[in-house]
């Protein structure tokens, strides 16, 4: 389970923003300290750059400054593969000092080798990328044996007392029954919970064919989550899971998960690249937010239901009113 201290931190953060009347505030900073990865997945649009860009790194100081600047209580360190960054331990330590809840997103290939760099902390979670059982995952990452390596990494991290979650992206053609078996298998490893999101065609992703369209997403998640097992724990808002099944309708909150990387503050979101701002303030003030999200009619957003866009909406709904809170409790108990 997510520690109560984390739930409390997020709840009090959202409530304080609402009391102050702030309209656009971030919940999760998506920090990409590098784009270089030790995998080359066909579905990934994050690594398609010339070498001199892949070789660039954010310094720990730049990472901390971004976290201070935007103020989000949670930092998701993505990339690229963060464990490839030579100063990832310093980046993490500095964020923990700032009492940020960190999700270190990794494919876990280097996890066993680099785990000694970290100490278990309620602030640090390893969020391991697994897109399904062995066959599905190895195909998704275009390399044999990665699933097994990741599972070894998970076992080691769990054994050492780290918080561990699975971060899973489901693509078109996913078999609901296999996904259910996958959930059983990963929960049996002793992880804290599962994060799951439909894949989305990054504008730049070379693979545009296998991302789920909206209706298919709803169908798939209804099938997967029908008779949800008690043993499955999700590191997601219960209302986001309702949204994926088509039980509630939300629009995107793209400023909820701002992205900072070697180019600056990415406009408007983690998935789309419509340019960069030099500061978080500039990002918030100069991005034409009304042009993004499902209801905007922007074709680039038409089929997007990813958690980096819609989870913040669900969280705001939960803490924004008693009605939202009651809805969340009901969804959590269902």
């Amino acid at each position, binding site marked *: 389970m997510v520690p109560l201290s984390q739930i409390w931190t997020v709840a009090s953060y959202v409530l304080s923003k609402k009391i102050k009347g702030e309209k656009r505030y971030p919940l999760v900073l998506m920090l990409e300290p590098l784009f270089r990865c030790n995998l080359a997945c066909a579905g990934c649009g994050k690594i398609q750059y*010339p070498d001199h860009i892949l070789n660039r790194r954010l310094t720990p100081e730049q990472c901390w400054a971004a976290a201070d600047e935007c103020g989000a209580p949670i930092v998701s360190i993505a990339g690229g593969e963060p464990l490839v960054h030579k100063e990832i331990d310093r980046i993490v330590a500095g964020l923990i000092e700032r009492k940020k809840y960190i999700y270190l997103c990794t494919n876990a290939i280097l996890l066993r080798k680099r785990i000694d760099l970290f100490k278990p902390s309620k602030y640090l979670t390893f969020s391991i990328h697994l897109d399904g059982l062995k066959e599905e995952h190895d195909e998704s990452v275009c390399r044999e044996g990665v699933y097994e390596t990741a599972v070894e990494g998970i076992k080691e991290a769990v054994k050492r007392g780290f918080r561990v979650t699975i971060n899973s992206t489901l693509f078109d053609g996913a078999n609901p029954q296999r996904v259910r078996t996958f959930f059983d298998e990963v929960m049996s490893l002793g992880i804290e919970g599962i994060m799951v999101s439909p894949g989305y065609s990054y504008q730049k992703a070379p693979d545009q*064919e296998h991302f789920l369209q909206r209706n298919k997403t709803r169908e798939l998640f209804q099938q997967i989550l029908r008779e949800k097992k008690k043993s499955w724990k999700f590191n997601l808002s219960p209302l986001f899971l309702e949204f994926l099944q088509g039980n509630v309708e939300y629009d995107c909150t793209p400023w909820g998960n701002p992205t900072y990387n070697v180019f600056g503050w990415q406009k408007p979101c983690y998935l789309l690249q419509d340019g960069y701002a030099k500061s978080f303030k500039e990002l918030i003030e100069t991005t034409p937010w009304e042009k993004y999200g499902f209801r905007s009619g922007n074709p680039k957003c038409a089929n997007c239901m990813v958690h980096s866009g819609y989870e913040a909406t669900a969280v705001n709904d939960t803490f924004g009113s008693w009605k939202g809170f009651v809805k969340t409790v009901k969804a959590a108990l269902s």
Partner: protein
Amino acid sequence: MGEAKKSLTGESFVFGDDVQKRELLEAAFDYRGDVTLELASGEKLEGYLFNRQLDRTPYFVEMFVAGEATPRCIPVDQIIALHFSGKDAADGKSYEAWKSKKLKERQEESKKIESEMKRAGLLD
């Protein structure tokens, strides 16, 4: 979506008018490889064009020139020609392309990437 776009790799353009210039600089912003900008001063800059402001003044593009630590901001009115000089990093990397390869080719490619990564210290 899904339509195979013709790669711009190797194409060169001297701008006819401002509309075409804007469209081409937008294409350069979308391009996943290095481009070369020819400036009115005669200077040629090769690098990755990662940002642009073409819808309001001041009009500019931003580029990471290989080997330079900080990005350059280049006013649009100084750019007279554009060359898609670098390889498009997204070209030919589709999932379909991967699947359509014979198993042996996929295994060979996988091994090649693996040994490159081992050399770079990114894998055990």
